[in-house]
């Protein structure tokens, strides 16, 4: 399959890339290309200009700054999957990376690119919602948007056509007991999620939940933070009954559509099941068995 003709631009700096975005209106940013190139081959998108940011130095990083981990625009899924600091501080991300597509796609596809693309069934959005990440956006200036305000709808975010998502800053969950999990339900190896649920839980010495984040993907027009489910557990000592109640609340917030991965009814039910399992796993990792 051959895409429509396009002009290829390879800026050497972020400033140049932003200048090109302002100058050429019908342009797309190419980072990993694992969504853009297939869409161009299918001619679902045919930008006149492709701005390849891979030659810009200093955009591929995972670094600890204070109590946050910062991930740059060109950091690949595979970089996150194998990063010792991610495994130690944000293990949910390494877990999610390992179930994205396959080795070859993970070697090229980028974390920020996937978030900016905002496929409603992508894995990363659930994790940044659960972890309360901040999205660092560069355009004419710099602005920072909470993950919970970033996603607008299918393939739609708050990013303007002249902006680039350059970094995601993730607070490291901190407390006496912490646990995280990303659970994905997929039909076959490497598939998009039927449903994916990310959970991050912090508990006090008294075993009460002091902080909780639940992100859900693939079962609504946009990924969502299951705030109704979070409320049920916040401030309480988790029990099997409370976790089940939270799972039901997360499922009640879903708005899935029927497709080849299942009927809407089935997906809503799977949202309940996988929210429960994701929460249980996060609690187990925090040393709490219910």
């Amino acid at each position, binding site marked *: 399959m051959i895409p429509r003709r396009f002009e290829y631009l390879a800026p050497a700096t972020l400033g140049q890339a932003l200048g090109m975005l302002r100058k*050429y209106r019908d342009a797309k940013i190419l980072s990993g290309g694992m969504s853009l190139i*297939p869409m161009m081959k299918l001619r679902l998108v045919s930008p006149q200009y492709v701005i390849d940011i891979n030659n810009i130095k200093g955009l591929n990083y995972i670094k600890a700054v204070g109590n946050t981990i910062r991930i740059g625009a060109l950091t690949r899924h595979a970089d996150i999957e194998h990063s010792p600091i991610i495994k130690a501080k944000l293990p949910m991300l390494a877990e999610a990376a390992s179930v994205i597509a396959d080795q070859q796609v993970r070697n090229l596809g980028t974390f920020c690119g996937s978030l900016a693309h905002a496929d409603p069934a992508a894995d990363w959005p659930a994790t940044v919602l659960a972890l309360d990440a901040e999205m660092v956006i560069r355009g004419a200036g710099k602005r920072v948007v909470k993950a919970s305000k970033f996603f607008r709808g299918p393939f739609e975010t708050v990013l303007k056509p002249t902006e680039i998502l350059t970094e995601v800053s993730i607070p490291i969950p901190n407390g006496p007991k912490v646990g995280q999990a990303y659970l994905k339900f997929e039909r076959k190896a490497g598939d998009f999620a039927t449903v994916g649920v990310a959970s991050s839980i912090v508990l006090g010495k008294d075993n009460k939940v002091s902080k909780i984040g639940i992100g859900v993907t693939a079962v609504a027009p946009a990924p969502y933070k299951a705030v109704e489910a979070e409320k049920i557990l916040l401030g309480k000592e988790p029990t099997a009954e409370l976790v089940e109640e939270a799972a039901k609340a997360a499922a009640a917030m879903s708005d899935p559509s029927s497709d080849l991965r299942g009927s809407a009814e089935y997906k809503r039910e799977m949202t309940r099941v996988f929210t429960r399992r994701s929460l249980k796993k996060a609690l187990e990792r925090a040393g709490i068995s219910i």
Partner: protein
Amino acid sequence: MAVKKAAEIGSKRPVTIEINGTKYTYDVEPRLLLVHYIREYAGLTGTHIGCDTTNCGACTVLMDLNGKWKAIKSCTYFAVQANGKRIITIEGLAKDGELHPLQKAFWEHHGLQCGYCTPGMILAAAGYLMINPNPTEMEVRHGISGNLCRCTGYQNIVKAILAAAEEIRNSGRPVIE
């Protein structure tokens, strides 16, 4: 604003790629996929096109990304992106007439039936063994999950990769020299 005229958009430009140690330069359109550059311009037809949709892995090659060899799917990469980069295809694995341990193991363990997926399987396996030199059977299956064999000969493919991994470990040599 100096916007290019429609006729100039996407016109051919020289792209140089080092494939298996040899530099090739051809004038190509930006929309040319790497797999077509390899097969139709450089004439190396060992890299196959299977699904053309990033699913089957038949087009897998190794690319030097920041000094590390990584398996990628060449049907989902523009040749122009590879300008100045190094890649290895199936033709570049044997050295001095001696098959690579993965090639030998695929032969010995009947890891190929029709052979169509084999180049991609071998390069995906090479990429994976560089990440995990001592994998379990399940890890090998996860490592090649981006490659499809429609003869469904996975049992012997997995056996071959496990055997090659052992041979490479025992030899003390890197997966890719």
